[in-house]
């Protein structure tokens, strides 16, 4: 799909990328305790005795977290393991109160799956690439350390400690920063459709560990580095860009890539080695003896499957094939679940009010939404989530255009007033007297006046100056204050000019 290579001094290098995305599971309570998960609480106020790893405290898993991980797995067509188990990953750090993270190594909840990415939505070929997902497992998040509050101390806040995460591990299937970016965006879209993660990267609900290696095209994988906790699509791409170039330079200078953990610095766009975490990685994974194997029955799995919404790829195909929405529009409108929901409400109202099938109005609706409303909202610094125009009011406006009550240019005016006032389209048209004039008598009279006032131009037109037709239309519309039905104006002009 893309042929991204690093041009080294000694030739071309291919980049191999795998991502481990940590997605916070949408749940009210933590994975193994009843403490809340809400973002932004006062330090250590959402910490139970279990999360603080007090002596004798024990974990009990949250059904919702398991359910959401299973649904996510189903959404990427993955194998769901009805028998899985939690393991302990042992290491010491101040943000890890138990001295181990409860995770899943040997028997993850979700096995192999995949998702399809599209690099360029405007590409008429619409080329997709399938990216493999190795596994999804459920694990505990760690707490947070603050280093800038005290000269000699770091502060530990355990509010996040024990919040459920899904670790979604891709196969090393990506070959460019653009593919990795598309993968993260697509994954985020799916998570938000499923409702298993809010995808909020600013609040840390989604972050990625970026594995990068380079190789000569066709050769074995090179040694990879892992850059931890990268928290935006842009930074993921920047990390890859930097790491790939760094590694190529290193190898070409006769050096060797060291398998290590690195940290991305957003200020400089570079990565650096995290030596503090390098000492003897030996996590001593073993099954958590405080927990039994997790066995999911058919009823649970069926309920998970039944609760899945229409997923973005399916929705997009339906928009294109059943509703006749242009491919690019379909791609944009399905990229965010909220946009799709908005569009579908708009469509429902527009079709109902005109008594038409959705397929008959979908193309127009998608065009209006994308070119008119998005543009107008953009100017106001708003988006659909805080749009003064609701999908129902938008549908009403589309219906008014559709049945000829107003023209397209008047509709623009109406929309502006709607955005300002939040009023309904019909109400505005009525109040402002914007109804389109289709009465042939009035239009005929206006046309007659225009022709009588411009005998020279009539002459010239009849003499072959066809492009003067637009002038007559303009003058007639002006005389009618823009409310004349353009089709009727055209017809009458043609008839009178002969």
């Amino acid at each position, binding site marked *: 799909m893309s042929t991204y290579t690093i041009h080294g001094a000694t030739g071309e290098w291919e980049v191999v990328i795998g991502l481990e995305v940590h997605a916070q599971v949408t749940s009210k309570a933590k994975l193994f305790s009843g403490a809340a998960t809400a973002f932004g609480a006062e330090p250590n106020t959402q910490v139970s005795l279990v999360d603080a790893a007090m002596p004798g405290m024990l974990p009990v898993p949250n059904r919702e977290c398991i359910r959401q991980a299973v649904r996510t797995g189903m959404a990427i067509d993955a194998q769901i393991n009805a028998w899985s188990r939690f393991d302990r990953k042992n290491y010491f750090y*101040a943000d890890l109160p138990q001295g181990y993270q409860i995770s899943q190594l040997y028997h993850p909840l979700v096995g192999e799956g995949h998702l399809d990415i599209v690099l360029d939505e405007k590409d008429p070929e619409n080329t997709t690439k399938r990216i493999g997902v190795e596994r999804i497992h459920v694990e505990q998040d760690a707490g947070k350390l603050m280093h800038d509050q005290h000269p000699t101390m770091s502060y530990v806040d355990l509010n996040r400690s024990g919040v459920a995460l899904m670790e979604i591990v891709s196969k090393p299937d990506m070959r460019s920063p653009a593919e990795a970016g598309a993968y993260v965006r697509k994954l985020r879209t799916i998570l938000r459709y499923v409702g298993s993660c809010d995808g909020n990267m600013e609040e840390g609900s989604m972050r990625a560990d970026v594995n990068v290696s380079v190789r000569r095209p066709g050769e074995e994988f090179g040694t990879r580095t892992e850059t931890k906790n990268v928290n935006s699509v842009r930074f993921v791409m920047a990390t890859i860009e930097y790491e790939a170039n760094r590694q190529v330079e290193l190898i070409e200078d006769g050096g060797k890539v060291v398998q290590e953990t690195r940290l991305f610095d957003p200020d400089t766009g570079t990565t650096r080695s995290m030596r503090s975490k390098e000492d003897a990685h030996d996590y001593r994974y073993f099954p958590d003896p405080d927990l039994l194997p997790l066995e999911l029955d058919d009823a649970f799995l069926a309920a998970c499957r039944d609760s899945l919404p229409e997923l973005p790829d399916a929705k997009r195909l339906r928009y294109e094939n059943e509703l006749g929405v242009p491919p690019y529009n379909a791609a944009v409108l399905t990229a965010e679940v909220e946009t799709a929901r908005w569009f579908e409400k708009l469509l429902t109202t527009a079709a109902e009010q005109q008594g038409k099938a959705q397929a008959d109005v979908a193309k127009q609706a998608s065009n209006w939404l994308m070119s008119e409303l998005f543009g107008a909202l953009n100017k106001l610094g708003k988006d659909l989530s805080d749009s003064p125009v609701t999908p129902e009011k938008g549908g009403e406006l589309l219906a008014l255009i559709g049945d000829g009550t107003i023209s397209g240019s008047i509709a623009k005016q109406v929309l502006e007033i709607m955005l300002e006032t939040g009023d309904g389209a019909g109400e505005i048209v009525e109040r402002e007297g914007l109804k389109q004039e289709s009465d042939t008598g009035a239009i005929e009279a206006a046309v007659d006046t225009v022709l009588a006032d411009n005998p020279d131009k009539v002459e010239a037109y009849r003499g072959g100056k066809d492009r003067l037709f637009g002038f007559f239309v303009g003058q007639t519309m002006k005389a009618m204050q823009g409310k004349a039905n353009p089709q009727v104006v055209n017809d009458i002009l043609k008839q009178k000019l002969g």
Partner: protein
Amino acid sequence: MTEHTEMGVAQIRDGVANGDFTAVEVAEAFNAAVAAASDLNAFIVTTPDSALDAARNVDARRAKGQDIGKMGGVPIGMKDLFATDGTPTTAASHILEGFVPPYESTVSAKLWDAGAGMLGKLNLDQFAMGSSNETSAFGNVVNPWRAKGSDAPLAPGGSSGGSSAAVAARLCPAATGTDTGGSIRQPAAFTGITGIKPTYGRCSRWGVVAFASSLDQPGPMARDTRDCAIMLEAMAGFDPKDSTSLDAPVPEWEAGLNPDLSGKRVGIPREYRMDGMDADVAKSWDDGIAWLKDAGATIVDISLPHTKYALPAYYIIAPAEASSNLARYDGVRYGLRDLPDGAGLQDMYAATRAAGFGKEVKRRIMIGTYVLSAGFYDAYYTQAQKVRQLIADDFAKAWESCDVILAPTCPSAAFPLGDKVSDPLSMYLNDVFAVPASLAGLPAMSVPAGLNRDGLPLGLQIIGKGFDEQGVLNAGLAIEQRAGFTAKPDTWWKA
């Protein structure tokens, strides 16, 4: 009237309920006994006021005609592995010195709800790791028993050595214990008392300082079988806070006690009759067989072929789990913090844990860390869990031909303090008969069977099918009735 401190759980409960005496009188008597027995070092903390408060409460309830509970008016000792709200809980380790839990373990809470009171927190092997109570950071407990004609201090067994010594010395009518690889049964045997480890999952582990999660199981230690049945009823029960807790109703074990073993088959595992077995231990086992026959049981020879591998498997699995369970003692949130000048976080961990953990705890953390480390995991840990499955399978097969199993509790009577400290392996071997049932999660109990040639108590062990505590208790009662064990240690510790 019998002295209050000579009474057991049933007798106290019934006496208080009948108004023969008050709970406060009982609490005062035991508080006094505890105060006079500091030489035994059985308690880490005494809580006489707590015992009195609970007693007053029970007396008040009785006065109002309310139910006083299964353990109404019975003051008990609490092994200092159970978190007690507002009372220091140390696991006998410096690393938890000064730790005052703001929460109460499920088991202790159930006991208080049942009308029991707390005399104090009982000494134990540090983090329940030991078989002689010599690994406690607060000094060893001394067994109230002494060999005939000797003043040499003996080990009370471990890890529940404070519990065993306190019950045997009549400092409390009963005490909680926890059993990971024999920590209830072996000290019970060493001190001539009764103790039962129920089926894994019967008693909640919530609020019990963890040693090895897949093995740890609380249980009662008391003077006889009935008292154990009563107390176990009060301790057991489903706890949604413990994922390994059994979601099953608690049987009425006391009401179900029946020493008639007609129709029951008692298995005698041939692999437990080891070469060079102590003659007195062998004899007490034979006595036990005769008593159970007399109670109506049929004796069958059984085989538990993987018995010899139980201890080595245990000494991989238990330390592995412990190495992880004890990682939380890091000086950040509670307990000891040792922060050398200029030390960073990781240095603080290492210094804190070096200063806070005792030698045996460190040794086990080291073993556990090693067997889980990269490259060794399968050879040690996975292999041990497979052998553990084979050991459980051995028992499953045995249940095809028997209902309970009879064996000695320990290979010897109480040994002198200091005897095995320098040789961890010989210490570990003391649990050779106790560990298989722990690995298989089965209920197992020790009852006194008599005295050896030195006048020291010996225990017999009954192992039952999973969930069949009743079968175990009944066989224990049958032995108890025939053993006629009434011997008591001399009260040398009362100055």
